């Protein structure tokens, strides 16, 4: 059976509140990294101000002042979920230490969240990496239909960040995806990202950036497992995506993200249409057909079983999947909260369309979008034609503007609920639901998280990296540093070669000193 290698990067949101007001986050985030440097055994990261930890993961500060944690290289989806969770626990510990130092002065929170609702138009990434050996140019054909249709179980749920109303979406990140294929990662993002930075010898790396940070172990497990199997099938020459080519991948992604029933037919190239679930079943059927083939990993049967279960659940409707997957759980919370606040969730679709229409009109000259939506529905509205048209539709339905005013007044509260869902620690909504025993998302074998915070996976180069970091982390004189492919001491001029991602034994070389390593000496 074949080995697969995968890893996950998570960008964390950090909030800082002084009482009921936002505080300056910059010193908090920088101090968080200082606390990490002073409390976590590590070696320096050669390519950033971050560090490699004793569990072989990487922790660093990335663009946009966010903390990012990359799991070590994992060889199965259990480890991938386990090390994602280890990252969350590590972050939570750091926040705890930080809060203890700063007392009650500033309340700091840490979140696995995907889009910024403050109006900044930005997003937090959760990227997956899958090692492979096929021609990278052939991958989009096979991966894009999978990446679009897997949203039915990989969606984090939330609200369309560009809608000024409250439009639920299976995948808020989807609103930030602007192309089918792109090399960019901070703007103009693609469903398929062409970045191929293998960080090892003899392989390629598929870098998926359209995914989202999730709370459900089942959702994460199937996301990592199913995508690994699709890559394995493509690598084996089975052409898994050929029969399900989407006519417009971006339009299909938007449709899937908007469809809580997961029943929207997506137009394929040619005359056919298939739902996202049917496309997923196409991939799954092929994987099941080849589950015992030599190119498949040993764990393929378990992944297929869970993959099928998740698709069955989603097909049964969001209520059936609410205890298992992120977006149906969030939808349940939102619908319940709307009810408790006196909002009619079913009528939001009407108001979202009205808000879109007004936003569009307000963006045109002379308004140029420079006034609040509340003003648009006031007596002296600057867009009377549009408002009269909406009022005509409202009269037919018996709706009143006060209902929209209520929605706009509660909008920030719903957006906060979305962010709080993934908050790390007991104040997080997902954590609270999990603690109350009302969820059913756990996967047998995803355990020992505490162990994973301090120990690497038990195979591949991650095992070697973790073992060496443990040994040398206390040796300040050695000025040990590293990147994904080596660990190095400029003092001793010794280097551990980690260019083989499946390496099992330590290979040390004598090395000349150069670059940043020289500066560390």
């Amino acid at each position, binding site marked *: 059976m074949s080995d697969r290698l995968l890893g996950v990067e998570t960008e964390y949101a950090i*909030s800082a509140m002084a009482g009921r007001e936002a505080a300056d986050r910059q010193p908090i985030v920088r101090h968080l990294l200082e606390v990490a440097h002073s409390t976590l055994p590590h070696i320096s990261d050669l390519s950033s101000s971050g560090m490699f930890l004793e569990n072989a993961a990487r922790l660093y500060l990335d663009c946009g*002042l966010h903390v990012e944690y990359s799991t070590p290289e994992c060889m199965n989806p259990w480890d991938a979920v386990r090390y994602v969770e280890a990252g969350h626990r590590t972050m939570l510990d750091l926040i705890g230490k930080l809060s203890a130092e700063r007392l009650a002065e500033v309340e700091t929170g840490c979140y696995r969240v995907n889009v910024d*609702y403050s109006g900044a138009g930005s997003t937090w990434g959760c*990227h997956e990496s899958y090692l492979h050996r096929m021609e990278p140019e052939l991958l989009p054909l096979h991966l894009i239909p999978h990446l679009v249709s897997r949203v039915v179980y990989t969606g984090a749920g939330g609200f369309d960040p560009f809608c000024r109303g409250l439009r639920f979406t299976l995948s808020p990140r989807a609103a930030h995806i602007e192309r089918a294929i792109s090399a960019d990662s901070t703007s103009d993002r693609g469903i398929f990202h062409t970045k191929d930075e293998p960080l090892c010898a003899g392989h390629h790396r598929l870098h998926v950036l359209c995914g989202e940070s999730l709370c459900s172990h089942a959702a994460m497990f199937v996301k990592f497992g199913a995508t690994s199997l699709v890559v394995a099938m493509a690598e084996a020459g089975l052409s898994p995506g050929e029969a399900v080519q989407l006519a417009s991948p971006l339009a299909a992604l938007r449709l899937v993200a908007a469809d809580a029933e997961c029943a929207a037919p997506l137009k394929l190239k040619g005359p056919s249409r298939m739902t996202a679930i049917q496309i997923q079943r196409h991939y799954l059927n092929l994987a099941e057909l080849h589950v015992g083939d030599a190119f498949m990993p040993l764990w393929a049967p378990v992944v297929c079983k869970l993959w099928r279960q998740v698709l069955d659940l989603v097909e*049964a409707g969001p209520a059936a999947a609410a205890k298992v997957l992120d977006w149906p*759980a969030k939808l349940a919370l939102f*619908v319940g909260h709307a009810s408790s606040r006196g909002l009619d969730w*079913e009528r939001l679709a009407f108001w979202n369309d009205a808000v879109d229409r007004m936003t569009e009109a307000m963006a045109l000259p002379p308004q140029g979008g420079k006034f609040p939506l509340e003003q648009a529905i006031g007596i002296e509205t600057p867009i009377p034609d549009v408002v009269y048209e909406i009022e005509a539709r409202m009269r037919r339905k018996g709706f009143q503007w006060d209902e929209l005013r209520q929605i706009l007044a509660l909008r920030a509260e719903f957006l906060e609920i979305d962010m709080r869902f993934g908050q790390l620690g007991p104040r997080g909504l997902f954590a609270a639901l999990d603690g109350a025993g009302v969820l059913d998302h*756990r996967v047998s074998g995803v355990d020992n998280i505490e162990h994973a915070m301090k120990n690497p996976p038990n195979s591949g180069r991650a095992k070697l990296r973790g073992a060496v970091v443990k040994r040398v982390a206390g040796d300040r004189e050695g000025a040990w540093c590293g990147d994904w492919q080596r660990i190095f001491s400029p003092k001793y001029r010794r280097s551990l070669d980690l260019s083989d991602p499946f390496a099992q034994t330590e290979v040390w070389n004598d090395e000349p000193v150069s670059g940043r390593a020289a500066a560390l000496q």
Partner: protein
Amino acid sequence: MRFLQRISDPQQRPASGDGDANSGDMLQQLRSQGNSLLAAGDEAIRRALAGSNSEAFLRASRQQGGE
């Protein structure tokens, strides 16, 4: 894999229609199943939002970059 034990019931599938409307049906379905998720969710939200200023909270975690 506890959720593997559950067999999904095709009868639970909501009638076809627009997404928001079926999401509204979700509330009734969850209630009719005596779903404990709603009660626990209400309580968790109440605690999480206690004393919160939502607008300030959203500003407090503003992302300036990100991939």
